[in-house]
């Protein structure tokens, strides 16, 4: 179901828990699918002994992918026209992430109606791990 301009207003939000208790195995899955095999994301020995991190941590792109799921669930499949993010905090195994989209504007580009959204993903402590923006085609 696509969003309808007539039923949207600026400030309206949609949020979803996009991962609960993130598992290291999911980082391995993401490495395998995406092709980003950086050992920082799957190799505990390398991440701790060589890189000096407390453990492995998530690919930024995994957080973006998880957040994208919230967006497509809300705006509908094939409706996104843009999606951009900044990675502002690391995501660790065990984290639970909540992603939220907020309507920033409803506009027209030619015959097309679009919604502009601001996007934020926070962890279980309320710390922001990613911020961003997206636009999607909506129905009148």
């Amino acid at each position, binding site marked *: 179901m*696509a969003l309808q301009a007539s039923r949207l207003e600026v400030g309206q939000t949609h949020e979803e828990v996009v991962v609960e208790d993130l598992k290291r195995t999911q980082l391995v899955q*993401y490495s395998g699918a995406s092709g980003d095999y950086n050992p920082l994301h799957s190799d505990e020995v390398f991440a701790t002994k060589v890189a*000096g991190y407390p453990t492995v941590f998530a690919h930024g*792109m995994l957080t973006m992918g998880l957040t994208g799921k919230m967006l497509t669930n809300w705006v509908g499949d094939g409706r996104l026209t843009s*999606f951009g993010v900044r990675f502002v905090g690391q995501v660790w195994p065990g984290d639970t992430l909540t992603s939220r989209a907020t309507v920033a504007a409803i506009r027209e580009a030619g015959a097309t109606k679009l919604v502009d959204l601001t996007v934020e993903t926070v962890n279980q402590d309320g710390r922001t791990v990613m911020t961003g923006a997206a636009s999607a085609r909506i129905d009148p």
Partner: protein
Amino acid sequence: MAVDRFPVEAGHILMFARSIGDANPIYSDEEYARKTEVGRVIAPPTFVQSSAQFDPDWPLRPKIGEPWFGSGKEPTGARSNPTGGSGGGGAGAGLHAEQHFEYHRHLKPGDVLRGVTKDGRRWEKEGRRGGRLQFMEMITEFYDQNDELVITARSVGVRTEKLPEQS
């Protein structure tokens, strides 16, 4: 980064959707997809990043016959860590700071993409925790089998002089 040929395959899309925990049937079920507005299986919005699988020079994939910097007998298998431009990098070197996509259309199984990457802006900033930060932007335009622009990707990588302190 240069990707001459990125075949978009149904199995790859399914594995990618699983890896981001997305059970949406639009990414795998053709029969379901036919009845939707989209009308066919498509790829999730961040899927195009897995074009790295088809980049022969992508530094964050072990290559046959070459040393790999991950752990084996020793905590690291290489003297120096490769650093990837768009996808992060080695210890304390490169991390992914930003990623932006513009969708001209969404990808579907059967597409064959070609990625053309050019350097974007470069800038520096004094980091609060990580010393001097160097930002590098790269823009990749993905064209399909009909030479039509389908996705424009803009990636910003950041390098720090030292590891950020953990909090």
